[in-house]
């Protein structure tokens, strides 16, 4: 298949940086630079390192270079009626596969179909010593060695620069329908829990300003049956696109926080709050730090201002024992701390 392989070039730059102890800023489409602390250093550009390397619909696996644009990847899947089931946000059309996996962000379907990490089958990476390493593979099940490829999802390149990635893909559903209900958040989520328990084919949920929206994905007949059981008004499917790519007005707030909580925790009827993932994901504007509040609710918070790289703490602080093990893991992959240093935490 076509594309452009920059592996050797990238490896040389990392080897050099390792010798000179030069910090590297890994970037590709720059669509997700807001998601983390600002990194100072020499640019390691992954854009141009692109191309789909293998894709066979019957294998449910796609392998591509990390700089491959997500829209290109999805177009290829579309031809076979398949999809990235975790619905990664694009933010801009420059978004790349590597960025999606490195940030580990997942869209509206996450609570129902799984997260980015759940679909990672294998990865080729270059660690902080400039060694090109391959973990996992292109098969569905693989327990040889530690699951380093999944560990890369969400590590934002701090453990290794993603070079190639293999993802599990899924068939698209035969049909998709959105149902809307005028109901408050607490009551709406109670219904949702019951419907999930009944096994209704729900693939996304959103509560915002007094409306609960649910997406159903299944066969035509099964959706009809679910609708007659659940009620609600059939509306268009655009909402999920806006949520997935974070173009919904809610995401335009500069003081936005992302709260990840146990789904049934403390669902209040706050109008400004947008609730996804069956209650497990809350988007909320606040000028105060929400780390402590999230911790008390057994979850975590992320500062989520789409427009700016932040010098402030973006991610929930880690407990001391966890921070210590994180540092040792970072050391194991990137002993001189040259890969996106401080991107996740100042200490990493």
């Amino acid at each position, binding site marked *: 298949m076509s594309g452009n392989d920059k592996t050797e070039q990238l490896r040389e730059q990392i080897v050099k940086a390792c010798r000179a102890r030069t910090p590297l800023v890994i970037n590709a489409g720059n669509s997700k630079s807001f998601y983390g602390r600002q990194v100072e250093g020499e640019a390691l550009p992954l854009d141009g390192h692109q191309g789909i390397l293998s894709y066979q619909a019957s294998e449910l696996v796609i392998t591509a270079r990390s700089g491959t644009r997500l829209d290109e990847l999805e177009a290829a899947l579309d031809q076979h009626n398949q999809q990235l089931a975790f619905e990664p946000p694009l933010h801009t059309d420059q978004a790349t596969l590597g960025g999606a996996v490195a940030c580990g962000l997942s869209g509206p379907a996450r609570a129902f179909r799984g997260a980015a*990490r759940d679909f990672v089958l294998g990865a080729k990476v270059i660690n902080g010593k400039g060694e090109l390493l391959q973990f996992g593979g292109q098969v569905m099940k*693989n327990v*040889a060695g530690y699951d380093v490829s999944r560990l890369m999802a969400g590590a934002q390149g701090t453990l290794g620069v993603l070079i190639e990635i293999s993802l599990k893909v899924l*068939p698209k559903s035969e049909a998709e329908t959105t149902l809307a209900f005028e109901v408050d958040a607490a009551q709406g989520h109670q219904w949702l829990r019951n419907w999930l328990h009944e096994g209704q084919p729900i693939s996304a949920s959103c509560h915002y300003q007094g409306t609960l929206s649910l997406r159903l994905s299944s*066969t035509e007949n099964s959706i009809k049956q679910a609708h007659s059981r659940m009620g609600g008004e059939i509306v268009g499917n655009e909402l999920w696109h806006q949520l997935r790519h974070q173009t919904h007005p809610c995401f335009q707030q500069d003081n936005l926080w992302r709260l990840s909580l146990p789904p049934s925790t403390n669902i209040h009827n706050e109008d400004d709050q947008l609730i996804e993932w069956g209650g497990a994901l809350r988007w909320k504007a606040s000028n105060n730090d929400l780390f402590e509040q999230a911790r008390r609710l057994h*979850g*975590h918070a992320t500062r989520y201002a789409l427009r700016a790289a932040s010098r402030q703490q973006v991610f929930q602080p880690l407990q001391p024992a966890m921070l210590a093990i994180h540092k040792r893991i970072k050391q194991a992959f990137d002993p001189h701390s040259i890969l996106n240093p401080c991107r996740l935490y100042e200490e990493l």
Partner: protein
Amino acid sequence: MIPTHPNKSLIVRCLQKILPAASVLHETEDLRPYECDGLSAYQQLPLAVVLPETVDQIDQILTFCTKQQIPVVARGAGTGLSGGALPLENGILVSLAKFNRILHIDIENRTAVVQPGVRNLAISDAVREYGLYYAPDPSSQIACSIGGNVAENAGGVHCLKYGLTVHNIMKLEVVTIDGEHLTIGSDALDSPGYDLLALMTGSEGLLGIITEITVKLLPTPETANVILASFDDVATAGQAVSNVIADGILPAGLELMDNAAVGAADDFVNAGYPRDAAAILLCEIDGSDTEVADQLSRAQQLLQRSGATEIRVAKDEQQRAKFWAGRKAAFPAVGRLSPDYYCMDGTIPRHQLADVLTRISELSDEYGLPIVNVFHAGDGNLHPLILYDANIEGELERTEELGGKILEVCVEAGGTITGEHGVGMEKINQMCVQFNEYELQQFHAVKQAFDPNGLLNPGKGIPTLHRCAEFGAMHVHHGQLPHPELERF
């Protein structure tokens, strides 16, 4: 005569200060039941077996072992098939058998908090009354422990649709060898920092001892039904698997059995299988009534078009159970064909099924050892069962050699040496085939981050470079030498 550790009696006395005397086993006859796991070809008595009941006791045991530099092996139910829980001669075996309580069932959030020694099936049994179940269902589920499942990233018949252990757990409590307590994952759907939940799953007891697990529960599907399709050629059956999946159907299970397995299973449980078929496929669809009806008929047509010679759809729950009974009893059924069998666990890309099965049957002829195939076809996870007789001198060695060859065929086909049983002691040499020295060094560095002195389950999972050099397999990887400019050791 078993050689004893010079300080054995002193060590036992120290352990008896931590645990009640009955929870410290040290007499040979008490140690016997622990000398192997499900891979009984390897046997070793440990220095002692301890059966802690509290996390505090585990803490004290690990602190003691760290101080004395005594290696530690964790053991769940001992059903592992790769020698992962094989004791070490100078090591302590920590059995989690007494950690057998389900601590909490959260119906609203559909999760359960369980101790590691709880049996896999006991979780589904406990939540059935709420219309819930725990999805990963290894064939050993009546016996194996959830802690062992996490340590091996166990799979099962339903993994094609519902994922492996790693997809079905939320949170772990872990004690490291230094006595550090880590809460990994959370009750939310994600956690800040690195995905240590993924790293811990499948780590074969090398990174820490798992003391508590929060699992995800799923609502029991409204309906499930199964199709039994016969084929007059194994390769055609393999192609049918690809056709079903390419068409957009995601069966809950898609299992293949070859003629020998069909015969053995039918003899054993009278499953009513078509005994003259070269291969059968069991294709299960689950979901809502309408969804199942829709997809079942589609799958049926596809199988027909893919060359099935006969198709049966289970008429009722009873017949469905009967179709599955044969598959579930396949291993013990094959066990009756020969004094011993050896179960392999390679995984390959599905489109390689026909080629790899042909290659396996050639190897079987070459070695004069029959091979029976029963496997998770939907996932491409093969379980060739090599039939042999351990009482014939040299036959076990030849069987192991043949097994090693099969795994190498899997790697060549773009697959892996283990899909779900783990590396353990058994596949340590084949790790040198699948990974190059830098990759192995990276694994060792990860291990060091958790266990700097290498006291947890040493010698398993990841081979030393020295071992690979001896095995002679530290060579060409993915067709090329890594970093040819660097010096070879």
